[in-house]
């Protein structure tokens, strides 16, 4: 008995982690998947109902708006975060004075919660006392900036706040990537007559492909899951104009008591994330095995 215990101790120690994740991650996802095939309303029902919830979901105007918003948000969020992140990383990489201070400033938003970020930006963007008033008081009398309460534009306020929060993170990833490149490569290229722009555009950025890939995966992942920022900034409004899938899921489950339908929306989100993550994990694993 004691011998057996000693021999299997590592596995016994490992068991809580595996058990908890097996139950609370895999078990729960399967439960959600099952429920998405039932006609559950307030309480879960367990007789199968087919793909009715998915048909209902893709016929719902609100869900389609949510998916539309997600695509717009993801595209803009990705582009701005990556462009700003790369510019900052390259510029910081030029033996800048006070680099530490600047880096700290660019990255501190990552330490804040999306609720804090949303609260701050909501105040800054509010038309009565925020930026709009600032410009009017400065003498631009016809200046209007009402995106926060404008159905067409509200989604872009979420982009502004989201980019503000996450661009520094991309900067940190690229800076780490650039710093890992041998100095000699850059110097040799310069002697061959390449200017700084060419060095980065033709040599260094192509070398950063894994960093691009990582940033892409993480940013898409953040955007599919974005929930807090929308709650704090717009609550999905005005109307339902800034609804996103994560918000749709919780509202459908906990306010509208449509458990089956919300499970279906959760599974759509799950599949979207899996489509991005599984290739990523696969390539990471291959890279590690190759080492």
């Amino acid at each position: 008995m004691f011998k057996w215990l000693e021999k299997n101790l590592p596995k016994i120690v490992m068991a809580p982690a595996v058990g908890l994740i097996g139950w609370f991650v895999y078990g729960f996802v399967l439960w959600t998947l099952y429920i998405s095939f039932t006609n559950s309303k307030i309480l879960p029902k367990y007789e199968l109902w087919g793909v009715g919830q998915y048909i209902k979901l893709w016929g719902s105007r609100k869900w389609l708006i949510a998916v539309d918003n997600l695509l717009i948000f993801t595209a803009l969020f990705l582009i701005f975060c990556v462009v700003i992140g790369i510019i900052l990383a390259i510029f910081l990489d030029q033996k800048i004075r006070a680099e530490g201070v600047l880096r700290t400033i660019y990255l501190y938003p990552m330490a804040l919660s999306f609720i804090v970020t949303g609260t701050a930006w909501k105040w800054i963007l509010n038309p009565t006392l925020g930026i709009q008033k600032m410009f009017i008081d400065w003498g631009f009398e016809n200046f209007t900036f009402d995106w926060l309460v404008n159905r067409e534009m509200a989604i872009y306020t979420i982009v502004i706040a989201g980019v503000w929060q996450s661009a520094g993170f991309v900067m940190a990833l690229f800076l780490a990537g650039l710093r890992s490149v041998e100095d000699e490569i850059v110097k040799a290229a310069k002697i061959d007559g390449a200017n700084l722009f060419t060095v980065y555009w033709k040599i260094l950025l192509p070398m950063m492909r894994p960093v691009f890939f990582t940033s892409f995966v993480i940013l898409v992942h953040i955007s599919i899951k974005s929930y807090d920022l929308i709650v704090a900034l717009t609550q999905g409004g005005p109307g339902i104009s800034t609804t996103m899938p994560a918000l749709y899921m919780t509202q459908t489950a906990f306010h509208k008591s449509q458990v089956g339908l919300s499970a279906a929306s959760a599974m759509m989100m799950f599949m979207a994330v899996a489509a991005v993550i599984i290739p990523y994990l696969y390539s990471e694993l291959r890279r590690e095995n190759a080492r």
Partner: protein
Amino acid sequence: MQDKIHSSYKQLEQKSKYTNLFLRWFLYFVLVVFAFYFIFPLYVMVVTSLKTMEEIRQGTLLTWPSGLNFDSWLVAWGGRGYGAGDTFLKPYFWNSIKMVVPAVFFSTFIGAMAGYVLTKWRFKGDKWVFLFLLFGCFIPYQAILLPMARTLGVLGISNSVIGLVLVHTVYGIPFTTLFFRNFYVSIPSELVKAARIDGAGFFKIFFKILLPVSTPIIVVTIIWQFTQIWNDFLFGSTFSFGEAAPIQVALNNMVLSSTSVKEYNVDMASAIIAGIPTLIVYVLAGKYFIRGLTSGAVKG
């Protein structure tokens, strides 16, 4: 060869001194402009929290406050003292502390053990076990919210701090395991093998050999978990809405409550209070914070 590159590089540097000078000014200009963009919201939050509502209506976002007036901070923290409808952060701040400390401890401990086994007591299929755990970093939590809500209900710990401790411990394990596993991989296994030959057991090896060198990764993990759990809103708002709510939920409720006139100064003071613990950690231990971000690079 290296020397040759070096000396011809020096010549090149001399030649392009003037273009360089212009370039450097441009560089600093862009960097400073972005610094303003990133600092701007924090600046606005701080000055707004120090103004009276009268000052807010008269001035602009950027106007400097007339004095150091901490009234709205006191209101945000302790309320106005009139019973019902008086929302303030103090009790929820403590809820968050009570939630964060045990959740960080348990998830870090479990992750350390898992990382130790996965690297130093390898068994058949351990790679798959790691992948199995790692996938937990990425799942959108919406896919587990419904069964989790029911489970907490069945266990009788929904709407309580204990329930949130359980949730955060569980969903922290994939991250903590990842951190410790990646750290222990880099520690030579020969030490462990030698100790095993000398007859040292599982726990003795962990406490005598690995734990003493683990300080950096423990710091990284604690900071990561602390930031994640402190900043969480999804779990907090779904599983705990009343008295047991954590601070982010309370902050959101406070800002959204539309009783009487909107008090932006109190809102901003509340937001700062909710953000200050993680900001302090970031400023004091930024190096470890960034290490967590980039090595764990799987944030959600």
